[in-house]
């Protein structure tokens, strides 16, 4: 039941309006209907489920790696298989799990948080998902046909060039990137437009939830960063397939050019993964400290500054290549500077928790886990920013420890917290708190047991990406400890899955707002209907659901017999005009298939660029074929 009562008595009876709304927003039946879905909740869920499967696959690869490294001179995996596995682990986690899951959560949550019915471009949304799925299938087709990439997740040439990586392995890697980056750009564009133009009336920019701010910053970062990796991977792919000379030194190319272009993307990429997680933490902390966030303007400015500064750090990945000292000093300064923006946010959260009435549910456990792990990872990051220290620990297990601390602590823990926080909204049921806390402790303890010893291994000289190591180096005991920790993490993951599956069918139904959180998504039903809200809400403050009910107004006058939404102005969200969103459409799926054929085929034969363009063009014609104005079909 909706928590927003009608404000006007002359509104037509709810029953008729509601049934019109349900009819306008229903999914078409059957398998074609399933392929034609354009509602954001369904697409968001698909992203989340697919990304979670990728997480499991990446985790399986990690377990294989750790099993091989548990003992010195182990023979569980040979060098070729190990190289494929560690590359696929990194590639899956970075491109096929971390960014897509954040996108999926955004696609699910943003329209709800903004008080609207769908994202700005529903068909583009669907297209982005199918293309992402195509990328997953493409890479794993390679994995299961012995064509998994084996050159590391950033694939430096000339090792990944035509002479030193024969076959199609690196080509699969490079082209998978194209899939996922185009998909990411689609999502970024629609998130920005949704946030800017489809907010609830009077939700001015300074009343937006911090999660929305984080997704806005992240989406702009995606738009600026992703083209760089498409360029880098295209340079590599064309050097490998059509004998260009961009980055292949045998023909006058420059391997460092690849590194610069890749890391210009690669560093913002980790912030692209991390900044939405900051938004999760803000939501969880506000709901469970039961007070407004301390320092909202500082938080927003820190997020924006984080986004900007992230683009000025990339050369810290290349300190060992022999840079001029002034360059080293500059990038040390910028790499340390970004600790300030992250630090401000940590201080603000701690201040919020200091003065709040803390409710220690599982989501908050994960938020605390985030603070502990991320701060440690951030501090090792400050160490890595220092060039002399970096020159000792670059490309060792110290770096592996650092980035897992910031990525798992900084992104995965908030993500799990977000799952626990929003599961009641997504499914209408509460997750088991008891299992949730056990889940948290397994993950927390397992994680620290796995990755803390790696700091020491790095300082003691263990390089990255080695499939084995000799006994006499003394790395055996720490490595074994790390392997034990990895298996504990695996158990934690299993507990999570058990919790999800059992909670989905449990009898603990959730109210609309079990955490008494202030943001708009908690006003929708649990789970939300396809149309999200019976009547679109308006807001009068930063915390609409903490306002007294009589102050909460709704929008009336939108037609309910078609997918109509309200477009508002950018700064103050004054209502501007009505807009009709397209209904279900099979064309995004068809277009994605055509584009996928073009991408996948071009790895084997350049002619597929032509064939792929032709069929994609035809699909786009079908997509944009003009229909009767105010198209009524759902």
């Amino acid at each position, binding site marked *: 039941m909706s928590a927003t009562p009608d404000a006007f008595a002359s509104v037509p009876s709810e029953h008729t309006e509601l049934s019109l709304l349900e009819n306008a927003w229903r999914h078409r039946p059957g398998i074609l209907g399933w392929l034609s879905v354009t509602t954001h909740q369904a697409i968001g869920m698909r992203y989340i489920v697919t990304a979670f499967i990728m997480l499991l696959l990446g985790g399986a690869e990690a377990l294989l790696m750790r099993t091989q490294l548990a003992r010195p001179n182990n023979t569980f995996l040979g060098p070729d298989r190990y190289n494929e596995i560690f590359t696929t682990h990194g590639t899956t986690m970075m491109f096929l799990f971390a960014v897509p899951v954040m996108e999926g959560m955004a696609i699910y949550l943003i329209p709800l948080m903004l008080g609207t019915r769908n994202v700005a471009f529903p068909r583009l949304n669907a297209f982005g998902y199918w293309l992402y799925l195509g990328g997953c299938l493409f890479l794993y087709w390679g994995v299961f046909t012995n064509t998994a990439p084996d050159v590391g997740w950033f694939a430096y040439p000339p090792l990944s060039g035509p002479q030193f990586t024969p076959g199609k392995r690196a080509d699969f890697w490079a082209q998978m990137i194209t899939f996922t980056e185009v998909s990411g750009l689609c999502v970024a564009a629609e998130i920005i437009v949704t946030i800017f133009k489809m907010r609830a009336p009077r939700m001015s920019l300074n009343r937006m939830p911090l999660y929305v701010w984080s997704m806005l910053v992240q989406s702009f970062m995606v738009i600026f960063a992703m083209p760089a990796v498409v360029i880098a991977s295209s340079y590599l792919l064309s050097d490998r397939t059509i004998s260009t000379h961009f980055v292949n030194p*045998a023909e006058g190319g420059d391997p460092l050019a690849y590194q610069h272009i890749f890391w210009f993307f690669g560093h913002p990429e980790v912030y692209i993964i991390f900044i939405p997680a900051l938004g999760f933490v803000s939501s969880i902390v506000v709901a469970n400290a039961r007070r407004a966030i301390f320092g909202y303007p500082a938080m927003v400015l820190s997020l924006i500054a984080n986004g900007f500064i992230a683009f000025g750090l990339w050369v810290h990945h290349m300190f060992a290549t022999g840079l001029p000292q002034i360059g080293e000093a500059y990038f040390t300064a910028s790499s340390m500077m970004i600790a300030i923006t992250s630090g401000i946010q940590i201080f603000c959260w701690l201040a919020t928790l200091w003065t709040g009435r803390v409710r220690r549910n599982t989501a908050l456990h994960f938020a605390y886990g985030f603070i502990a792990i991320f701060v440690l990872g951030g501090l090792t990051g400050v160490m890595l920013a220092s060039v002399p220290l970096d020159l000792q620990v670059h490309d060792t297990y110290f770096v592996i420890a650092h980035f897992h601390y910031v990525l798992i602590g900084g992104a995965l823990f908030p993500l799990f917290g977000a799952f626990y926080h929003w599961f009641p909204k997504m499914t209408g049921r509460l997750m088991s708190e008891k299992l949730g806390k056990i889940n948290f402790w397994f993950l927390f303890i397992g994680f620290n047991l796995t990755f803390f010893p790696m700091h020491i291994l790095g300082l003691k000289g263990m390089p990255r990406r080695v499939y084995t190591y000799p006994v006499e180096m003394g790395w055996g005991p720490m490595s074994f400890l790390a392997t034990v920790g990895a298996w504990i993490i695996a158990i934690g993951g299993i507990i999570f899955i058990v919790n999800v599956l059992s909670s989905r069918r449990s009898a603990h139904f959730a109210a609309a707002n079990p955490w008494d959180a202030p943001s708009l998504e908690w006003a929708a039903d649990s789970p939300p209907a396809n149309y999200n809200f019976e009547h679109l809400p308006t807001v009068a403050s930063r915390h609409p659901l903490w306002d007294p009910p009589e102050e909460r107004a709704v929008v009336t006058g939108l037609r309910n017999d078609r997918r109509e939404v309200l477009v508002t102005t950018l700064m103050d969200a004054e209502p501007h005009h009505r807009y009709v969103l397209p209904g279900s459409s099979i064309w995004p799926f068809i277009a994605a298939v055509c584009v996928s054929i073009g991408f996948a085929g071009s790895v084997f034969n350049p002619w597929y660029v032509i064939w792929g363009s032709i069929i994609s063009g035809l699909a786009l014609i079908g997509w944009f074929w003009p229909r009767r104005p105010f198209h009524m079909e759902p």
Partner: protein
Amino acid sequence: MYSRCLKIAFLTTAGCLLLTSCQREQRNLQPAPTRLAIYGDAARQSTLRPGGPVGREVVVNNPYNATAYDISEGKRLFDWFNCSGCHADGGGGIGPPLIKDHWIYGGEPANLFDTIVKGRPNGMPSWGGRIPEYQVWQIVAYVRSMNGLQPTSATSARPDTLESNPHNLQNRTSGVTK
């Protein structure tokens, strides 16, 4: 119900794709050491022989046919053993070109193997008994790939120019300082 259909469809497709585990990507990192046998009888250049045909012909195939790793190794060995010293990068110089349609001593893999192992008149050294058999097959695969007789997906990309930049990685002569 439809999600179950989709799951079945997906698993079937995945299964089929799994079976296409490619010849292209096989990497045998522990080849058997050398054999000194020479496939004299299989590498005949003509079907005519005295005494009439004698039973079934032995067909010898390149075990590394269409395998990307071995074609790449063949390219490396082509350079390391200085085949390019006489044959350049396939265009020939002191020796005949290796990119051609008409092979004097036969262009089938068995013939190429025979040529490398036995040597040929007018200057082709005999490598038999020197380099192991698996390396001969890798070089054969590479020479065939120069002629476009290996799948393009398995063939390593060639430099565009026959003469590579002397500042690049292929110059391994010690004494060259920069």
